[in-house]
């Protein structure tokens, strides 16, 4: 009893530390990546390679005054940034980083991550509504329609994977992909699926992750050229900081999930030395892709965004689901 209690505390502290450190240092990575793509140095003054920038930014943000606008709904204004950060941290509890490093493996691991990820959307609604700011309000209307639109193809694609593996247990899903790179769910023929469309499922899933985390080219929620800063227009100090950290923590969760569902989790591509390092490597490759995409593609329009989901991704993922079900019946 005592031992499990200690384990739980360690796991929770580790999850919070991992989420917060990643959130802080991904800001640095993003700024360096942006600078590289735009051919400028980026933050490189504080510490080696500018590595001291995130803690300094944190101190600066915490030293600032937290202003609450006059007409704002105080309770919800304060609740919104907290609600942005905590679902991401909750998700880390069930993500397996290797076959031993997992805080609490659950039968319904995927479901838990999606359940808490769906709560993140509410934080944007609360933030936009409680600020009493028209730009923030418009932003949250956009964010909600976006969240509703992209959650559907994402869940359908996940159901496809769950049908192939027959389990919602994240560790079991990774275990089924062990062996070699060809057993990963992303690869069509030799894997468990025999499904030619798996690479497309991966693309759909990854696109939806981009949209669900409000990343460019789908960052209509904070479109700074149209809506000042979107839902966090009125937020200063650490309220703003929490929104930012929440976004990056969500990116980490999304990348973890993509790694587990499609890229074989902690399995090595050649069947050698499976372990947490492979997971971390894949995770940061995906996050790098996130940053790369953000600074490469221009923002879409809101119509383009909604059309992409309702007219292309949802029909495609539904077809994919039926096709996979048929294949599973045949083989």
């Amino acid at each position: 009893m005592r031992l499990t209690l200690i384990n739980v505390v360690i796991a929770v502290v580790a999850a919070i530390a991992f989420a917060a450190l990643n959130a802080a240092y991904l800001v640095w990575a993003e700024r360096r990546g942006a600078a590289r793509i735009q051919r400028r140095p980026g933050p490189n003054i504080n510490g080696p390679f500018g590595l001291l920038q995130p803690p300094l930014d944190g101190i600066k943000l915490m030293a600032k005054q937290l202003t609450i606008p006059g007409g704002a709904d105080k309770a919800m204004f304060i609740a919104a940034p907290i609600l942005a950060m905590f679902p991401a941290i909750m998700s880390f509890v069930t993500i397996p980083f290797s076959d031993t490093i997992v805080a609490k493996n659950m039968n319904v691991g995927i479901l838990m991550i999606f359940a808490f990820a769906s709560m993140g959307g509410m934080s944007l609604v609360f933030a936009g509504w409680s600020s009493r700011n028209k730009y923030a309000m418009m932003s949250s209307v956009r964010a909600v329609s976006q969240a509703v639109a992209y959650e559907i193809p994402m869940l359908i694609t996940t159901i496809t994977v769950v049908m192939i593996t027959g389990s919602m247990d994240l560790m079991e899903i990774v275990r089924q992909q062990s062996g070699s790179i060809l057993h990963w769910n992303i690869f069509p023929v030799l894997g468990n699926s025999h499904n030619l469309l798996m690479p497309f499922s991966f693309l759909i899933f990854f696109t939806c992750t981009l949209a669900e985390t409000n990343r460019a080219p789908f960052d209509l929620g904070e479109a700074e050229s149209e809506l000042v800063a979107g839902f966090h227009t009125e937020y200063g100090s650490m309220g703003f900081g929490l929104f930012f950290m929440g976004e990056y923590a969500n990116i980490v969760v999304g990348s973890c999930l993509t790694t587990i569902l499609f890229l074989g989790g902690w399995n090595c591509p050649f069947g050698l030395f499976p372990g947490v390092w492979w997971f971390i490597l894949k995770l940061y490759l995906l996050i790098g892709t996130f940053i790369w995409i953000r600074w490469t593609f221009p923002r879409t329009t809101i119509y383009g965004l909604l059309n992409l989901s309702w007219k292309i991704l949802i029909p495609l993922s539904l077809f994919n689901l039926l096709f996979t079900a048929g294949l599973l019946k045949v083989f």
Partner: protein
Amino acid sequence: MNPSTIASPALFSVDGLVGVVFLIMVAITLIGGLIACNSDRLVRSVAGLIVCFVGVAGIYYFLNSPFVAMMQILIYVGAVAVTISFAIMLAAPEEKKKIGITGPLAGPLGFGTAALLAGGFAVLALQTDWPVQAKINDGSVKQIGIQLLTDYSMVFELVSIVLLIAILGALVIARDGREGQ
């Protein structure tokens, strides 16, 4: 009532702490429900509703059904509450209207109905002897699927009828609105 208080175990025994956790879940649910009913701003009501849903999900988790708990959060918080808030944002930009107590159900009749329901549930809860159920299966997707399509297929079908009625209702309301213009 909290079943563990009937035997009244010590507060710091396992059963006592379990009872405290259960009471916390119940409190969260009740507080959420009160916020949802009594706030004068619709968005706050939605926030209360979400708190209530999370509390109910906590009770499901407490009762050893993580699948139902996660589904509760995913569907009610992730889909229903988001859709409700979307509807509020589209419908009423100035939300500061205090909706007064109106209608025949609001006064004594409302209290009567509530009392009847609460009393009925209380009597039912006290008269049932709550047997501790064994864990039916391991809660994996396969088991849940088999159970849903065999033993509980009636429930499964009933849920789809509820959804069908909801869709029909939405269609009826939408048609009325169109003719009114």
